C-alpha cells in the first residue's frame, strides 16, 4: 500500500497539470513533395526542432503535406481548422498554396503565418502574416548598394514567371522612390531553358554597368554563367532566392565577385556585432546545423525559427484574453501580433501593424559578395 502513495500523488499531480493546460494546437501545411519541396522540407526540418511548450502551454503540432498543390493545401487547412480546431496555421512555403490557404484562414478567423512572400489583394490578408522578406525590402538593400557603387543603369535578366515579374515591378517602384538606377534592358528566360546566349548577347550589347539576375536556387547559376561566357565584365547582382550554396556549387568561378542580397540568417558569423539579428541568426545556424549537418543552413529553415519567436511574443499576450481553442484566443493572437512592435528575428527586423502584414523593415537585407566560393558580407 505504501508503495502506491507516491505514484498516486504523481498521477494526481499529472491530472491537475493536464487540466490546467489547454494545449495550443498548431497546424502546419508544407510542400513536402512536389516541385516546391526544396522550400518545404527545410521549414519542416526546423518545425521538428520547435520547443514543446510556449508560455507554459504545451504545443501540439500537426504537419500535413500539400504536395505543392493549392487544392490539397486548402483541403488540409480546412481539415485543420474544422476537425483539429487549430489555433494557428503555418504555411505554405510556395506562394500559390499560401494564397489559397489565406482564404481558409480568413474564413475560420485563424492566424496564418505564411512561409512565402505571397501577394494578396487588399483586405484578404487580415489573418495572414508573412515571415519571408518582400521583394521590395530586398530591392531596397540592393538599390542602396548600387547607389553606393555609383551605378546609374542596370540590365534585368529574370524568370518569365511571377517571381521575375514581381521583382521587376518592385525594383522599378523602389528605385523611383530612392532615386536609384534605371533599368535600361529587360530580358527573360524560363527555368528549364538550356541556354541564355541570345539574351546575354543583347544585354552585353546594351552594356549596362550592372545586371540584376532574378532566378531561384540552382536555377540562378545558368543565366549568370551565360553572361560571363558572352564576355560581360560588369557587376552582377542576384536576389535572395539565389542565396544558397547551390549558386557556388553550380556557378563555380564564374559567380566570383558577384553580389547577392539575402536575409541575415545565411551568413551570420560575418555580420557586424551591431546588426540586430546577429545573435538570433547565430543561434538558428547552430541549432539547425547541429541537427542537419554543417553547411545545411538556409533561408527557409530560418523562417521556421522565426515563427517561434513571433509566437513566443504574441501567445502570452493572447492568453490573457482567452484559453487556446477559443475564438477569443485566436482574435487576441492576431491583435497581439499586429501590436507587438519592433521585433528582431533571425531574418531581420519586423514591425507588423493593422495595415501591414508584410512586416520586415528596410534594416533586413544583407548584401553578400561571393569570394573564393564563400559568402563575404559587404558592409
Amino acid at each position, binding site marked *: 500500500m505504501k508503495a502506491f502513495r507516491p505514484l498516486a500523488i504523481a498521477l494526481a499531480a499529472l491530472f491537475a497539470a493536464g487540466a490546467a493546460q489547454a494545449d495550443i494546437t498548431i497546424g502546419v501545411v508544407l510542400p513536402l513533395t512536389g516541385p516546391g519541396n526544396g522550400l518545404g522540407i527545410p521549414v519542416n526540418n526546423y518545425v521538428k526542432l520547435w520547443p514543446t511548450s510556449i508560455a507554459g502551454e504545451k504545443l501540439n503540432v500537426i504537419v500535413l503535406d500539400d504536395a505543392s498543390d493549392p487544392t490539397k493545401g486548402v483541403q488540409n487547412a480546412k481539415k485543420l481548422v474544422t476537425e483539429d480546431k487549430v489555433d494557428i496555421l503555418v504555411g505554405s512555403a510556395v506562394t500559390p498554396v499560401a494564397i489559397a490557404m489565406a482564404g481558409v484562414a480568413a474564413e475560420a478567423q485563424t492566424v496564418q503565418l505564411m512561409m512565402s512572400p505571397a501577394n494578396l489583394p487588399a483586405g484578404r490578408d487580415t489573418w495572414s502574416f508573412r515571415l519571408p522578406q518582400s521583394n521590395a525590402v530586398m530591392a531596397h538593400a540592393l538599390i542602396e548598394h548600387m547607389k553606393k557603387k555609383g551605378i546609374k543603369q542596370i540590365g534585368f535578366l529574370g524568370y518569365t514567371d511571377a517571381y521575375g515579374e514581381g521583382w521587376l515591378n518592385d525594383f522599378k517602384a523602389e528605385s523611383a522612390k530612392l532615386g536609384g538606377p534605371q533599368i535600361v534592358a529587360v530580358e527573360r528566360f524560363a527555368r528549364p531553358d538550356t541556354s541564355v546566349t541570345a539574351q546575354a548577347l543583347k544585354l552585353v550589347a546594351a552594356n549596362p554597368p550592372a545586371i540584376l539576375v532574378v532566378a531561384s536556387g*540552382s536555377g540562378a*547559376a545558368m543565366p549568370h554563367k551565360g553572361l560571363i561566357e558572352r564576355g560581360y565584365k560588369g557587376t552582377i547582382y542576384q536576389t535572395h532566392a539565389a542565396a544558397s550554396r547551390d549558386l557556388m556549387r553550380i556557378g563555380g568561378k564564374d559567380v566570383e565577385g558577384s553580389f547577392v542580397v539575402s536575409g541575415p540568417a545565411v551568413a551570420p558569423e560575418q555580420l557586424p556585432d551591431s546588426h540586430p539579428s546577429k545573435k538570433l541568426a547565430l543561434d538558428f545556424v547552430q541549432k539547425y546545423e547541429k541537427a542537419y*549537418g554543417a553547411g545545411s543552413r538556409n533561408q527557409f529553415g530560418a523562417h521556421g525559427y522565426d515563427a517561434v519567436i513571433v509566437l513566443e511574443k504574441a501567445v502570452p499576450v493572447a492568453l490573457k484574453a482567452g484559453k487556446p481553442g477559443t475564438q477569443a484566443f485566436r482574435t487576441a493572437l492576431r491583435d497581439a501580433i499586429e501590436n507587438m512592435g519592433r521585433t528582431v528575428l533571425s531574418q531581420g527586423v519586423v514591425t507588423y501593424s493593422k495595415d501591414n502584414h508584410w512586416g520586415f523593415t528596410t534594416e533586413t537585407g544583407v548584401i553578400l559578395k561571393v569570394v573564393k566560393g564563400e559568402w563575404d558580407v559587404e558592409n
Partner: protein
Amino acid sequence: MDFSIASILTLDGVTNGAIYALLALATVLVFAITRIIFIGQGDFVAYGAITLAILQNGNPVGSFWHRHGDLPGTVWLLLAVAVIAAVVDGVRGMRRGLGSGVLAKEALLTLAVPVLVFAVAWFAGPRSWPLWAQSLFTLAVVTPLGPLVYRLAYEPLADASVLVLLIVSVGVHFALTGLGLVFFGAEGFRNPSFWDERFQLGPVTVSGQAFIIFVATITLMSALFVFFELTLRGKALRATAVNRLGARLMGISTSGAGRLTLGLAAFMGALSGLLIGPTATIFYDSGFLIGLKGFVAAIFGGLASYPAAALGAIFVGVLESFGSFWASAFKEVIVFTVIIPVLLWRSFLHGHDDEE
C-alpha cells in the same frame, strides 16, 4: 543585328538543335515501330544528366540519398523496376502454368543486367572514375530502364489504339518525373565540360562541348543508319514498323522489338542528357520541355521521316535562339506556335490516311 551576332545565334541554335535532333529521332523511331507517342523521352535526358552529376559530386547535402550512400538514385530505381518486372512476369508465367525452370530462367534474364549494374555501381561509387568511364556507366544505368518501362507499361497494351498508348505515355511521363524528384531531389545539377578547348572561327567561338555535341549526334545518326540497313535486328525492326502482323507471321517478336526500341530511346535520351549537362542546369523535371522540342521537331517529319525530323530539330533550335534574341519573353510561344502551320500543311498534304 549584325553578321557576328547572327552567326553566334545560329551556332547556339544549331548546337541545341543537334540535341533536339537526337530526341526527335528517338521519338520517330519509337512511334514508327511501336505506335507509342513517347512523352517520357525527355525524362531520360534528365536521368542521364543527373546520374552523371551525382557520380561526379555525390548526392547533394540535405537530400534523402545523401544520408544513404553515394549511389545515384537511378541505380536503385533500375533495381526496383527490374524486381517488379520479374515478379509480374513470374505471376503471369505461373498463371499460364509454365515450369519453374522456365520461370527462373526468365527472372534471371530480367534481373541479370540491373544486378550487374548495381554491383558495378556499388564497387565504383566510392572510387572516382575518370569522366569518360562515368559517362559510359551512366549510359549503362539508364538504357536498361527503357525495355523495363516498355515491359511494365506498354507490353500488355501493345495492340491498343494510338490514343490509348498516348494516354499511357502521359502516365509514364508523370511517373518518371515524380520518381526523378524522389531520387534526385528538387535542386538542379550541372556537369563538368567534356572538353574545355575553344576554337576561334571568325566572329564565332566554338566551344569544345559544342564540337562534341555535333560529333556525337552525327556518329549516332550514322550508327542508326548502319543498324537499320545492314543488321538483321535492324531489318526486323523496320519490318515491324511497316507491318506488325506481317512481321509476327514471319517470326519476328513484336514485344522484343518494342523492348529493343525503348532501349534505344532510353540510350539516346541519356546520351542527350550527357551532352546537354555541361551547358545547362538540369533539374529532375527539365527533361519535359527539352523532350517536347524534340517532339515538335519530330512533327516536322510527320513522325515518320528521319531526315525531316533532324532538319526540323535544327530549325527549332535556330528559331528558339533568334526568338530569345528578339523577344525573350515570348520565346516558347514562338517555338510552339510554329507547329500549327506545319500541322495544317501536313494535314492538307496527306488528309486522313487512317481511322485513328
